[in-house]
């Protein structure tokens, strides 16, 4: 039966405790949420989607070249209109002829993406990634970020035995006008709870399996209590609901919350155990039922506890910083940037057919023997060593990075050596998610794709490195 063969979770490294939020505002609208994930200034739904998908693909038994469909879900694509799916495909080096869809506009988008992938033939990748924003005074309080990725195939380890839908118009629960960044809600409490409960109940009840047999359920969760209210008319135990509730540890990660909850369940589930998923958003509920479980790459991210304070939180999320790059003296044109994506995403270096030396980026003469040659394309390792290091302090960044620095503070820039062929590729790159004082020459680092900077309104992405100690 068609279902899930592998899964990966990615959560940003830092956490903000609700206590911090409450101390800052005198109260916190985040019931039962202990802490939430905080995306770094260079992270967005795209980079988190790629990070989760990398983990899922690494733990999958199939090659990424076999993927025939990508179904993505997010309410926060970095651009309201523009390249998203195509960038995801390129960043992961998925086949150019892969089919794709992006579900957006409501928090049940993950359910939509599942439905699309389950209806298709051949290996598919489902990814939900989200980082919703709201008014910092209240709506933002519960909002976290994260991503979950699923490799879908026939004869799957975890079959999805059924999927069901229910739609009814119930506006005002969670909405965001075109052009706005922050989600809003009319907060008509009873109306909202009833609408969500009814929709999810109808969808779950429509499944061709008995929900009362489920040992776990990942249900729409905007706070810790909400999934229990949603389950009020369903034959689900509190233990089952608790097993699929992650909002207390990661916050409301929009369209990614239920998918992350599902993976949290699958990581613990035994063979034959039944799990129910219940998505809700925009008046639509999607329910599905899965059987069994398997180890989930990145599951330890759920236990992340690296705390930051509220001021740092506001900076990282960009609530208090807005940067605009003014005209300047150095420029990489967009076409030239596009021409280097194999290097910026996949670390493709050149091996000299004459001397075997490695050149990165693989252009011009060989860096070792200086001959003009046709390089052999080789992919450098995504793990490497810091060879040289500096820390760019506040105010010391080139203008392209002024906003990043305002949001992230001092950042480290390393020259990293990566094994490639019989030699090494070296490149300069920023270190992400790291205390710049806590890294040193000789440390091991691992590649991750992040937003590098935005120019002329177009965000540009490329490789950075995370410390592995």
């Amino acid at each position, binding site marked *: 039966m068609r279902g899930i063969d592998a899964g990966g979770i990615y959560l940003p490294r830092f956490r903000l405790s609700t206590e911090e939020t409450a101390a800052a505002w005198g109260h916190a609208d985040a019931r039962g949420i202990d802490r939430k994930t905080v995306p770094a200034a260079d992270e967005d739904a795209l980079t988190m989607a790629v990070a989760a998908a990398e983990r899922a693909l690494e733990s999958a038994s199939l090659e990424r070249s076999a993927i025939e469909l990508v179904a993505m879900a997010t309410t926060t694509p970095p651009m309201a209109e523009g390249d998203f799916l195509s960038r995801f495909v390129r960043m992961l080096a998925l086949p150019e002829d892969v089919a794709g869809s992006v579900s957006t506009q409501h928090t049940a988008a993950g359910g939509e993406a599942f439905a699309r992938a389950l209806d298709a033939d051949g290996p598919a990748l489902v990814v939900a990634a989200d980082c919703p924003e709201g008014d910092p005074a209240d709506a933002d309080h519960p909002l976290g970020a994260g991503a979950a990725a699923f490799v879908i195939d026939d004869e799957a380890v975890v079959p999805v035995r059924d999927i069901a839908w229910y739609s009814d118009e119930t506006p005002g629960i969670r909405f965001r006008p075109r052009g706005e960044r922050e989600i809003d809600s009319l907060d008509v409490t009873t109306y909202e709870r009833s609408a969500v409960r009814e929709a999810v109940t109808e969808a779950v009840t429509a499944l061709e399996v008995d929900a009362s047999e489920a040992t776990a359920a990942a249900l729409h969760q905007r706070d810790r209590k909400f999934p229990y209210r949603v389950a009020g008319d369903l034959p689900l135990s509190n233990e089952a609901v608790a097993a699929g509730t992650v909002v207390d540890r990661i916050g409301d990660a929009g369209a990614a919350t239920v998918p992350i909850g599902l993976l949290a369940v699958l990581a613990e589930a035994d063979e034959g155990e039944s799990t129910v998923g219940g998505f809700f958003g925009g008046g639509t509920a999607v329910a599905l039922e899965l059987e069994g479980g398997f180890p989930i790459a990145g599951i330890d991210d759920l236990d992340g506890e690296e705390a930051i304070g509220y001021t740092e939180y506001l900076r990282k999320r960009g609530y208090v910083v807005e940067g605009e790059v*003014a*005209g*300047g*003296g*150095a*420029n*990489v044109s967009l076409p*030239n940037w596009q021409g*280097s994506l194999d290097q910026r995403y996949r670390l493709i270096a050149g091996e000299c057919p004459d001397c075997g030396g490695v*050149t*990165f*980026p693989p252009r011009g003469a060989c*860096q*070792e023997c200086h001959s003009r040659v046709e390089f052999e394309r080789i992919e450098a390792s995504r793990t490497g060593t810091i*060879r*040289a*290091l*500096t*820390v*760019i*302090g506040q105010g*010391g*960044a*080139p*203008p*392209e*990075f*002024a906003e*990043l620095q305002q949001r992230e503070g001092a*950042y480290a*820039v*390393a*020259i990293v050596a990566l094994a490639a062929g019989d030699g090494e590729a*070296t*490149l*300069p*790159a*920023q270190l992400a998610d790291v205390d*710049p004082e806590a890294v040193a*020459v*000789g440390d091991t680092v691992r590649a991750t794709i992040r937003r*590098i*900077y935005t120019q002329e309104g177009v965000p540009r992405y*490329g490789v950075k490195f995370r410390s592995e100690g």
Partner: protein
Amino acid sequence: MRDAYVIGAGQSSFGSFPEETYLSLFESAFESTLNSVEGELPTEVIDEAHLGTLGVGGRQIGLSGPAVTEHIGLHGVPTTRVENACAASGYAFRQAVTAVRSGMVDVALAGGYEVMTDTSADGTKWWLGVSGETEWERISGTTFAGVYAQMASAHLEEYDTTVEDLSRVAVKNHANGAKNPKAHLGFECSLEDAVSAPSVADPLNLYHCCPTTDGASAVLVASEEVAREYGEELIRVAGAGASSGRVGLFQRGTLTSIPASVRAGEAAYEEAGIGPENLDFAEVHDCFAIAELLAYEDLGFCERGEAGRLLREGVTDPDGDLPTNTSGGLKSKGHPIGATGTGQIVEAFEQFRGEAHVQTDRPRYGLTHNVGGSGGGVTVHVFEREEAA
């Protein structure tokens, strides 16, 4: 090939002069250059000019060279603007030497100019990184301080060099620059000041970095025949070395050396028929403190990894065996990018004339070392004072 000689060299004051323009600064340097010539040199004898500038601030990007020579009354003289970042006028000088040596001209003017301090703080940051490798190095979020800091981190890791050694470079060069009335930062600093300054790009602090400076400098290069008309003792260009290297530090295979410096130095020594042991003084490119230490090693003043020791032992102090950066160097005298290379030759000229502010003892051989960017282009020149026959 005939020899080329330096018959005059001068500079404007280096500093922050927002009321000046690149034209007025060069005018001042040119006047100082003419005044340095023994006897009256009619400007009509100047056959051509090679002027270096990066063009910080994006002012006259095209044709600034002719704009300068017309401004100073060298009407109609063929002028080439040379751009090799911080080595622009080192290369302009090389062009002038080549022109004279070839026999095509008898007198060539080399010089450089830069205005850096009249631009907004944000605008300046754009320009400070434009000579780094643009597509990768800059896009990793570094300016020049960051790239040199990376070299420092690697040198500190590989050898016994310490952060305090970096600070000692500043102490020495400021002590020299304090005596130079044309220096930008003409004050002394204590080791404590230089150790405790705020960080710019770890491990480099403020005292490990040269300032941004406005200024201009010029040198007159002439054939032997002309030179003999304007002086008893001749200053010969004994060795002219230059070399290019990969613009990005990450592309060079070494992080603790500037290979183009090594090659340029070897070429200059070979042509001069001397080695570093024969030098009586040197002006080296200390845009950042680590750069002076790398220069000691790259130019053979000491073995690899020994630069810190050389400095600590006082070898490069004014009373040491090889006084280095008696002008104050880029650190104290200042670094108006395009003016730096010929500015170093101004100090060399004054040393040979016995007119330097920190004078060495009757030097015979001196060296100037000018680096573009983090090592994409380097010139090294060896000069010899020829005693009157």
